[in-house]
């Protein structure tokens, strides 16, 4: 079974995503922030990670850095969840190795599920791309 880790501080969103992926027959693990997310990963490795950017204690970007720095975890695809104003952060995250970013308010549950499916079907990334400026 595909295992998905959802790292999101807002319980409303966390529970919503949890339901979406439970409905889609994933094994769902949740964390309230980056720190908790890292702990969850140590226990059991997920197939894919959905991660919010703005979170207390450890934000999404720091979490991504830690993940990509660890050879054991760097291959796990990470999709960033963001809001409209956080677009520049989302792009930074892409540069740091995230595979996609999703503006939370723009999509219906089904579309989000499809996006995750698409990522899983397509590829997993091994390397961090270099940033072009």
């Amino acid at each position, binding site marked *: 079974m595909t295992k998905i880790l959802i790292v999101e501080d807002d319980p409303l969103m966390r529970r919503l995503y949890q339901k979406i992926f439970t409905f889609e027959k994933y094994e769902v693990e949740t964390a309230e922030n980056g720190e908790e997310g890292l702990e969850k990963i140590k226990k059991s490795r997920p197939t894919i990670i959905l991660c919010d950017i703005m979170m207390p204690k450890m934000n999404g970007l720091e979490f991504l850095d830690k993940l990509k720095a660890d050879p054991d975890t760097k291959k796990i695809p990470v999709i960033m969840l963001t809001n409209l104003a956080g677009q520049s952060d989302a792009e930074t995250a892409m540069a740091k190795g995230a595979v996609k970013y999703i503006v939370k308010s723009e999509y219906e*549950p*089904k579309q989000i599920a499809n996006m995750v499916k698409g990522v899983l079907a397509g590829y997993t990334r091994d390397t961090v791309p270099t940033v072009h400026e």
Partner: protein
Amino acid sequence: MKNTKSTYIPHSLLFKAIARIVVVGYGSLALSIFVLFTFDAPTAAGLIVIGFSFLFLTLLLFFHFSIITPLRKMILIMNRCRLGEMSVRVQNLTHDEIGVVGETFNTLVDALETSHITLEKEMSTRAKELENRMNRVQQSNLELDKVQSAIINILDDEAHSNESLRKFQLALDNTSDHVVITNTDGEILYANKAVTKITGFQPEEILGKNPRLWGGLMDLEFYQKLWHTIKTEKKSFVGEVRNKRKNGEIYFATTTISPIVDSQGDLLGFVGVERDVTEMKNYQQNLENLVTQRTTELKASIEAMTKGYALFSPTGEVVFYNQKFEDFLGESHTQWTLEKIIGKLENVYDLKSAYLNSLQHTTRDQKIDIEYSGRIYKFTCSPVQDESKTIGVLFLMEDITERRIMERSRDEFFSIASHELRTPLTAIRGNVSLIFDMFGEEIKIPEVKEMLQDIHESSVRLIGIVNDFLNLSRAEMGKIEYKKQEFQLGELIIETIQEYQSAGLTPNVVLEYIEPQTLLPSAYADKDKVREVLVNLIGNALKFTHQGAVTVSVVLSDGNLQVSVADTGTGISLENQNLLFHKFQQATSSLYTRDTTKGTGLGLYISRLIIEGMGGRIWIVRSEVGKGSTFAFTLPIANQGTSGV
């Protein structure tokens, strides 16, 4: 003369009496001596006779010399006096009664002479005066004749006849200006009827008098100048005078005084024309008062302004500034000059250029967000024009610090609120969708299903509004970053149209892209933002079109790419067209009739901000109620200079 003679003592009688006594005296003396010598022996009686005779003779002689002679002299002198010789006096006065009589007589004659001289003098003065007067009258008549003929000559060479003079007088009498003709001494020879109207004097009253009768209220300098001009320079004098009417009322008049000069250049007199301008003057005074009042009011208003205000003249003087202006500059000066102000603002604003541009090119300069000594200002420098003539330059300093802080916090509030709204709204929408996804088949009751659908639609609409707000506040704050790139506009249009088509269209409406005949250059813009605008325009067109077609086309126009979106929809009336592209404006103007199902009305406004932000233009090409509308926008094309990114 007989009377006069009888009042005097007949001097011959006295004289004869004395003469007789003398003769008798001498006779008896001579007789005694004869007797004495004839009778050889002097007898005592003879000696006594001789002695008495001698005594008597001596007495007689004494009388003759000390009384008779002075008396005779006095009588002579009196007679001379009587004949009019007033300079004679009694000489060698003795210290006796005769002398006293002589002195008294002299005093009498002195007094007589004095009164006589006075009388004579008076007589001659009177005679002279009389003569002068006669002369003057004669001269006046002469002058009047000369003046009249001169005037006639001036007016009309042929008009020597009395008829002309009469006409001339008639003309003068009928004018409302008062005309006075004087001789060279300023004595009035002629005055027309208007003189009464203006001065209150009848013409007859003032003939021969000086116009000072109603004038003379101006200062000495004025009259000196007047006389110098008309008498010495022989030129006309024009001035404004303050005169007094017969009833004491002060009036104002413009006066023109011209010398009358004959052909030899000799001065004959003067013509003065006076026009009563009291009413005009009063009117002018009222006007001036009004101007002063308005100026005071205006100054007070300017002082009360919250803006710093300074007015410069075209020659660079500081005409006026208010207290706020000094407060803002943070320095008070007894005499501000333009240079000082320019120097003071040197580091933040080029006032010199702004001033010169205002003056020379009548351009208005406005700079916002100028930071000066810890505050934020808006500076405005604009020409002050009076019938297309620049009469000054106005410089305004407006402290916008508070406003900026307010705006910033408002924008931040807007932004934060939008974000905070979006998460719960997304949760509502997501959960309702999920209910349909997970349990759709289990919802048996149609009402429940409809209620859930309405909740979903509400959340969708709300998210749309919040997104618009957020986009708007970011666009207005200039926070939108445009990631410009080269791309084929045609491809983007086709993609967008396909999205709409796959989402499903109203059955009777066609959405199509009319491909251009020739290959068009690439656009240089932010592709995602252009997509937003296209979605907005096509979305609007589809919303308001119930039958027909929505067509999108691209042409090259003036070196730009021009995209047009035309529909066959409801159209927009002319008055409502003006409201488009503004905040919260839907084409239906009223707040009550706005169609809230069709968006916030922010779409076109945001589109405008986006297109303008990328250097393009957006506008309504045409619109007619019932026939449809066409909207267009332009985008810059990619060229050598810009495509290298």
